[in-house]
């Protein structure tokens, strides 16, 4: 008897694929969905990224906003596709009918997620074409491909959030509620205009938004200033996806909808385990050998090395930092630190830029000390992300050696300057191309303390610090600042 109800594998596969195609066509034909999700990112980018940017002669902004509008584009299809459609179809009885029919398990959700990712792919392609041909943005193929992947996979956390909204709210209220989540989150994550133009309190709170993390990954890919590490962002985004997906399924199941077939618990357990594995892998990449104490964590670490092709993290462990608390007082007649190489003035000439800096010891250090390090120079317009300042390499040849600062709690330095914003930069991690920490601070005529609580910057691989720098990325023009009494304790 059972042969009657047995679906052949190919028919089942075709049913899933057909469901995806159906969902895609349906979404394309629904103007309330297709117009805002497809055209808003493109239109906004054209207006704010390309037109306004080029009016100010700022092609750097066109590139940066290209990355962030891609993330904006990645949010809409998932949020609206699930948030609005699920709410409406739940109420209209369609979901009930689908459950009575032998719709393959999970097909409803998979088709929608695939549709959202396809839409995001289309948006990413259109943005890329516009950036390259209209915005005159220079972009390598690898950067474009990475951004595409970030955007398309980045649709998933927003699918999960949309699912949760769609499970909770009424169909009539859903568009308004989705917009209330979508638009503020996009703005507060710096997707419409760069974060540095925002009040500090918003910058501080930005990491609570999943879109912020996706944006940092995208910005890092195009070489724009960004914070955190890729693996840290992946861990956060996977966590967001998992939590909202589980919340949504719990809610739907409570209202009598079985979207995952006859054995939802098994499916949920598999999804949760997969999500947890991704998070564990990401975290083990971030924290390196820290969790190697347990067997599971070390297995995860091995898997990361195998997956990424990076050397065994244990082998590339930072050298334990010396006990010395004062890293540099600049009172001994030179700019050398207690250990390592530097401080030395650095520009962006090596990256093809024309920003430069020189440094010298000057009398009158902080808190009445003998002298301080003064750095002067000019930020040029040669490359998109200029930098000039002074750099310190704690261990061995510049950028090559790794130092383990995980035993330290705070980093402080005294600074004063011409009133520009400067930043303290920490380059860390196994991958040289990792995104550095950039901690902004203001300067004035008086000495001020810049203080970094190391534990708060968990995205920095404090076990493997390559370089610490102080400098500026712009705006274009001359600059002057002094630093003194750099401490790590």
């Amino acid at each position, binding site marked *: *008897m*059972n042969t*009657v*109800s*047995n*679906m*052949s594998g190919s*028919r089942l596969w*075709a*049913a899933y694929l*057909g*469901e995806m195609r*159906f969902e895609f*066509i*349906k979404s394309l*034909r*629904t103007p309330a969905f297709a117009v805002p999700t497809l055209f808003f990112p493109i239109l906004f980018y054209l207006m704010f990224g390309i037109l306004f940017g080029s009016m100010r002669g700022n092609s750097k902004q066109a590139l940066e906003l290209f990355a962030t509008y891609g993330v904006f584009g990645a949010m809409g299809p998932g949020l609206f596709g699930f948030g609005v459609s699920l709410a409406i179809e739940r109420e*209209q*009885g*369609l979901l*009930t*009918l689908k*459950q*009575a*029919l*032998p*719709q*393959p*398990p999970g097909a409803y959700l998979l088709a929608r997620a695939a549709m959202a990712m396809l839409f995001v792919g289309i948006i990413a392609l259109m943005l890329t074409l516009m950036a390259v041909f209209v915005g005159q943005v220079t972009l390598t193929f690898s950067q474009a491909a990475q951004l595409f992947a970030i955007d398309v996979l980045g649709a998933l956390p927003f699918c999960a959030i949309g699912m949760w909204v769609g499970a909770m709210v009424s169909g009539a209220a859903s568009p308004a509620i989705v917009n209330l989540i979508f638009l503020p989150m996009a703005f507060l994550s710096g997707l419409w205009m760069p974060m540095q133009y925002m009040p500090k309190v918003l910058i501080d709170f930005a990491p609570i938004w999943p879109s912020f993390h996706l944006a940092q990954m995208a910005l890092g890919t195009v070489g724009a200033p960004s914070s955190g590490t890729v693996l840290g962002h992946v861990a956060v985004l996977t966590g967001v996806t998992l939590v909202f997906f589980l919340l949504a399924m719990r809610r739907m199941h409570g209202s*009598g909808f*079985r979207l995952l*077939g*006859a054995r939802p618990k098994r499916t949920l357990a598999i999804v949760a385990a997969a999500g947890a594995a991704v998070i564990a892998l990401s975290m083990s990449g971030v924290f390196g050998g820290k969790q190697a104490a347990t067997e599971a964590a070390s297995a995860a670490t091995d898997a990361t090395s195998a997956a990424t092709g990076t050397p065994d993290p244990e082998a590339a462990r930072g050298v334990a930092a010396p006990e010395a608390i004062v890293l540099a007082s600049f009172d001994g007649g030179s700019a050398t630190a207690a250990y390592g190489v530097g401080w030395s003035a650095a520009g962006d000439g090596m990256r093809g830029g024309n920003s430069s800096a020189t440094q010298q010891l000057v009398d009158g250090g902080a808190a009445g000390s003998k002298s301080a390090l003064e750095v002067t120079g000019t930020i040029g317009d040669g490359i998109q992300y200029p930098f000039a300042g002074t750099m310190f390499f704690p261990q061995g040849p510049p950028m090559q050696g790794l130092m383990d600062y995980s035993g330290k709690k705070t980093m402080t330095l005294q600074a004063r300057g011409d009133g520009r914003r400067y930043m303290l930069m920490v380059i860390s991690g196994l991958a040289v191309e990792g995104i550095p920490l950039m901690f902004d601070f203001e300067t004035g005529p008086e000495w001020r303390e810049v203080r970094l609580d190391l534990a708060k910057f968990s995205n920095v691989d404090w076990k493997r610090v390559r370089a610490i720098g102080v400098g500026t990325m712009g705006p274009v023009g001359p600059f002057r600042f002094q630093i003194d009494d750099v401490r790590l304790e």
Partner: protein
Amino acid sequence: MTQTTLASLKGIRKRFGKVQALDGFDLAVNRGELLAVLGPNGAGKSTAISILLGLQAADEGTAELFGHAPQEIDGRRRIGVMMQEVMLPGVMRPRELLEQVASYYPTPYDVDAVIARLSLENLLKRPYGKLSGGQKRQVQFALAICGRPELLFLDEPSAGLDVQAREALWKVVRELQHEGCSILLTTHYLEEAEALADRVAVMARGRFIAGGSVNEIRAHVTRKQVSCVTRLTADSVRAWPDVAQVEMERDRLQISTRNAEALLVRLFREDPQLSDIEVKRAGLAEAFTELTNHSAREAA
């Protein structure tokens, strides 16, 4: 194909807050039959069907579809479903909807064959949302049958259809039954059950109260309906023994009685000019009203 009971509910109890929607309800659908489930609003018809379809879980009792729990997809791959209140995606065309639903089944009918069988050709060019209410029901019926189901669930299938469309739908339902498909019909239209059903199950307040063929259900009702043209007034006849109800409808007197023979003798005696006489056994409508009223009195 030895299995004779395709779907069954046994001892089902289901409570929603203070309302006991089903109170030990049993139902079995056998191969090849057309079973109509009747009952007044709130009798528990929809709850029973949704438990049988796996849309709700029973508090107590067992539900089976082709030997499986209804939540399992295996049983549901052998059924077709037409629901009463459902809004399908308005931007999709009927053929796209049919292709999608047909893809869920192992051996569906050819979509074009279904379109031809139900004469849906004229509806194909318009998106579903632009169809009239009756046309939408026809598409929904097509979706229900396209998977070549062995058991078809029809919930108020002819609601919103004009007479012609209803007759056409009935014709296909009879054909399908002829081809071996079993059908579980829930309906408010008693004439629909009378026209189609082999067997009727009457529900009231979450329980099965009577079952059998249409004729058997009718036999539960002892009343007959006598109608004639007479000079006698309704008031005078109402006083006679065994007369349950009398009404004057235009020029005809309608009398409902338990003893038609005695009534007729007296009618001819009192009005020899009496003409155009008609005696009818009660229809399913009367049987149904009587059965459910009776059960309500018992419950009270």
